[in-house]
């Protein structure tokens, strides 16, 4: 797609500038050089690039540098070669955290998609008070995850938590929500609770934009609603489902805030970012923490590269 090189556009822009700004036979000022036809588009992105280099790429290289050193924030870093990485390969706590992160990723995305699809199908119609109902359902998405995790920690408390009180009032057994074999699922539950409206509303947007005539034709041909759903609705929603999976994976791989308000990495809930945080900021083992961070970054990038092309395609289709 060529956006700028239509002849008429360029000629007019040049004559415009030539007449108004750049006098004949004079060296252009810095400002004129920056804003001339050729450089202007680059001038506009420079602030962004500077910011990204300082805040994203510099720390990345810094971490890579430290991952080959031993450093405890005091004295000078000591070069240690691949020691940190060798330690990492055999570190079962790290790989457990890695595995748990993937577990959370899969559970949350699947449940969110299913719940979201259900709600989207439910609300894909005109009904009284639809704006209020939908607006209320959007709320969790905008509330700080940390605040929500603090709330849920109390709501799911064994003795005083409202959830257990309701359960026992209904005649069920109280549940130890934060037991070591269950806490990770409770974390998943909190996350799903906050994010299923996201899937729901993305899919709802998709359902609303589906072409009516195709479904009309299917109905006339006598296709059952289950068949229509499986063969028409789902395939047409697939770019949006892809968007949900990619974006949610990006968010979930860095899941962190829900741990702060609840278990703080105890009872088998330590996730990838938490173990990096704990190694770097609690134990001050910068070298080893950096090695973990680099591996965690690499994993994220693999995930992104695998999915980004698909995402851009889906986005182009959505737009």
């Amino acid at each position: 797609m060529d956006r700028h090189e239509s002849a008429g556009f360029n000629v007019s822009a040049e004559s415009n500038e030539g007449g108004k700004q750049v006098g004949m036979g004079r060296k252009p000022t810095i400002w004129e050089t920056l804003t001339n036809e050729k450089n202007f588009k680059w001038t506009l992105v420079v602030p962004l690039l500077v910011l990204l280099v300082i805040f994203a790429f510099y720390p990345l290289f810094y971490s890579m540098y430290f991952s080959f050193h031993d450093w405890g924030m005091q004295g000078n870093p000591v070069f240690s070669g691949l020691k940190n990485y060798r330690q990492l390969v055999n570190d079962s706590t790290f790989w457990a955290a890695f595995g748990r992160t993937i577990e959370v990723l899969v559970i949350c995305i699947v449940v969110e998609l299913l719940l979201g699809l259900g709600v989207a199908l439910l609300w894909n119609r005109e009904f009284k008070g639809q704006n209020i109902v939908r607006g209320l359902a959007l709320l969790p998405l905008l509330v700080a995850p940390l605040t929500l995790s603090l709330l849920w920690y109390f709501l799911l408390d064994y003795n005083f938590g409202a959830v257990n009180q309701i359960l026992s009032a209904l005649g069920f057994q109280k549940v130890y929500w934060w037991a070591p074999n269950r806490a990770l699922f409770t974390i998943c539950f909190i996350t799903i609770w906050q994010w299923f409206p996201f899937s729901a509303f993305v899919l709802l947007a998709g359902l609303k934009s589906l072409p009516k005539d195709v479904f009309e034709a299917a109905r006339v041909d006598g296709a059952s609603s289950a068949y229509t759903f499986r063969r028409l609705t789902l395939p047409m929603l697939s770019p949006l489902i892809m968007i949900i999976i990619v974006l949610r994976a990006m968010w979930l791989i860095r899941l962190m805030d829900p741990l702060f308000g609840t278990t703080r990495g105890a009872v088998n809930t330590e996730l990838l970012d938490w173990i990096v945080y704990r190694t770097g900021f609690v134990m001050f083992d910068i070298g080893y923490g950096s090695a973990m961070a680099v591996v965690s970054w690499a994993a994220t990038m693999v995930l992104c590269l695998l999915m980004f092309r698909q995402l851009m395609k889906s986005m182009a289709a959505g737009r």
Partner: protein
Amino acid sequence: MIKKICFWLLTTITLLFVLFPLAWVYLTAFKSNADIFDPRLIRFVVFKPTLDNFRNLFSQYPFWHDLLNSLIVSIGSTIITMLVAFPAAYSFARWNTGGGDLLFLTISTRMFPPAIAAIPHFIVFKTLGLLDTHWGLMLLYVFLNVSFATFLLYGFFDQVPKELEQAAMIDGYSRTEVFRKIVFPLIKPGLAVTAVFCLIWAWNEFFFAFLFTRNVARPVNVLISSFWGGLQVQYGLMAAGAAITILPALVIVGFMQRYIIRGLTFGAVKG
């Protein structure tokens, strides 16, 4: 008829599921400690309302101070983010600068695990004396939000037909005039949405705030998290604090419902 009942039943269940914890915040904020820890279910809704939690929050803790910090940092970071993202997004959309790779690079930085950035940032900030300052936190939030803001604005700029700009230039408008009279009016809603998202994300952010501030620039989220003490948690105070910090989200849902999904999908879904 049965269909209608089923519909409303399911809708009610969904809403109860979603609103239950939020309702709990606002109820608990007005409860005394005795009522909070009363195991009888009826105490969930029936209790003697009190303002003690709010009173304590404002008198015994620097809640105003921290709320103000949150406000300063959110607004400041949003302004800087928009100043950086706006021209870049225009360039990406108008001239396809960098042929898409640059845009990928930009968005990929949003996927960096925060922990990878946190260690080097902490060391650099310590050297530069930026720890526990408004500026330090603002810069971090600019970094966190800028790639997303660029992508979202890119989507809005992309919808302005470039023929419109070309026609105006042929008619003798200068570039500034084209921008001011044609592009800007069309992009205004996009700007508002993006700015609101930067605001709310900065307002909600916790991890960096927790690591990079102590007392001076501490945002309100970090204060609220300090009521969590492992064994002893001050739920009344926590709920009162949360009740106040959730208010902006309520306002935004009221005004911008149809833009929220667009924002959360980086502009990919119109919502």
